[in-house]
């Protein structure tokens, strides 16, 4: 990818709310926030699925955990973003530690099924939790309070906060996959048994990656609760986990911008098609099919083959 492209995209993203306001397109600012929130979630999944080769089909569990943490904290009067959002990440991390510690003992299809089962379990637990709205979910009286003269009620302010967090997530991913930890993670994806016999406790690395991904997804959950000012158990439904997987398959597994590109394409398509038909997923299915057939490594691969996972690196 030309080096300048991400900067151009960032500049456009910064300018977007100003332009949108000019043309009275405020709705799209809110929509863009939603896209970026899903991009954060998908990027976190890309760490374990793309770079780590762990096909987790229960990523929505952490999304929901983060969202509910913010919503429930608010019912107890805790509405500071500085407290509620880290708390959401902490809760999601704990959930990821628990789910990961158990499911990472299995492989292949069993791993897919057990992560799915855990997420569905959480989905049904929250349907049953009448104290927190059950099936109806919870309304948030307002968005989290962030201070510093920023009011998240204002869609543009919220948009910029989400943008900053998305950039932070992408930088973190970039650093992480090229650092020792990320190298180990990718090597485990490629040849786990050899990693064991050269001295790596592979389970620990996978679990650590799983928890990092869950934590970041928890942050995305905290943001989505703020964006819609409403949480319900559907946030944890397997359909959301599936959507996140489709996003990174569309965007590019183990590509830095895979999650972002996938979230943009999928949500924009959905938004563009849904006024005309209720079968928008049907169309997205065909797009996915086309991508898998003609760009099997995802849309990010069309830009560049080099940001992909570790081709030969020059010796320093």
């Amino acid at each position, binding site marked *: 990818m030309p080096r300048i492209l991400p900067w151009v995209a960032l500049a456009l993203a910064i300018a977007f709310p100003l332009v949108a306001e000019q043309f009275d397109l405020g709705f799209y600012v809110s929509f863009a926030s939603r896209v970026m929130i899903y991009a954060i979630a998908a990027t976190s999944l890309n760490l374990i699925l793309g770079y780590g080769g762990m096909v987790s089909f229960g990523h929505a569990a952490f999304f929901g955990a983060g969202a509910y943490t913010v919503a429930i904290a608010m019912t107890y009067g805790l509405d500071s973003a500085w407290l509620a959002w880290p708390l959401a990440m902490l809760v999601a991390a704990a959930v990821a530690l628990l789910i990961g510690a158990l499911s990472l003992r299995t492989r292949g299809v069993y791993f897919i099924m057990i992560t799915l089962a855990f997420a569905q379990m959480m989905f049904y637990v929250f349907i049953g939790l009448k104290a927190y709205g059950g099936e109806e979910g919870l309304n948030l009286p307002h968005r989290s309070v962030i201070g510093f003269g920023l009011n998240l009620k204002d869609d543009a302010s919220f948009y910029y906060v989400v943008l900053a967090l998305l950039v932070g997530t992408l930088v973190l991913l970039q*650093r*992480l996959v090229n*650092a020792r930890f990320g*190298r180990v993670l990718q090597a485990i994806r490629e040849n786990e048994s050899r*990693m*064991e016999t*050269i*001295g790596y406790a592979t389970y620990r690395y996978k679990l650590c990656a799983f928890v990092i991904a869950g934590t970041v997804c928890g942050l995305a959950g905290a943001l989505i609760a703020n964006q819609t000012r409403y949480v319900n158990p559907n946030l944890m439904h397997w359909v959301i986990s599936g959507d996140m997987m489709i996003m990174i398959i569309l965007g590019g597994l183990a590509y830095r911008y895979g999650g972002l590109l996938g979230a943009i394409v999928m949500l924009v398509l959905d938004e563009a098609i849904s006024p005309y038909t209720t079968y928008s997923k049907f169309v997205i299915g065909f797009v996915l099919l086309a991508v898998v057939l003609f760009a099997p490594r995802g849309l990010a691969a069309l830009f560049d083959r080099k940001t992909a996972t570790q081709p030969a690196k020059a010796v320093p």
Partner: protein
Amino acid sequence: MSKSVLEVRGLCKRFGGLVATDQVDLAVHSGEVHALIGPNGAGKTTLVHQLSGTLPPDSGDILFKGQVVTRMSAHARALRGLVRSYQITSIFRSHSVIDNIVLAVQARSGSSFRYWRPVSAERALYTEATSILERIGLQDKAATRAAILAHGEQRQLELGLALATKPSMLLLDEPMAGMGPEESERLIPLIASLRGELSILLIEHDMGAVFRLADRISVLVSGRVIATGVPDQIRANPDVRRAYLGDDMPGQVIA
């Protein structure tokens, strides 16, 4: 006689009705090249799996440097210096040759739970990896993707991965598998150069290589060690000749 670095006592492994490892006793002395030979299906690779920690034995004990490691995980054994190579090449095919070696060097040099500093900036890792490449003769292929190496070069890298962990004992599972004679000729001096520096359990079908390299030889037949001794003793042993070298009773060549 020097002290044993690896000691195996009464090791057993069954797969259903098949006894793959049958009361194996084995001692590898410090610094020696100890060859393990035996017909196909004798249970040599199964034994390596148990010694390296990828397969739990049913009973018996494995002692490494005097410590019982029978139930220890493969990665813990590797970090203690007991490292294996594979008969079927097991390398990181999408990585460059040097990045393969860097991974192995990284395993034993500091924590790998580091999230920020790029590995490419860690010169010490690459310096060490480069010296390993020189030793295994792949320095000219450092930037080549492992997948496109020739078969013999992949076998060199296979050995290099094990060597890069700085083992005190190597379990070499048919290092010359599938190699042509000239390729083997490159590997034999390399293995010979390791004698004294570390201990080696060498599993090999190439009898020429075995008798050139081994200080002592053990013969495994149907999961049992039927003889151990210096090469001349093994050559002269009638049981060994019958079971293996003589090839006069092929019906016995079963597990």
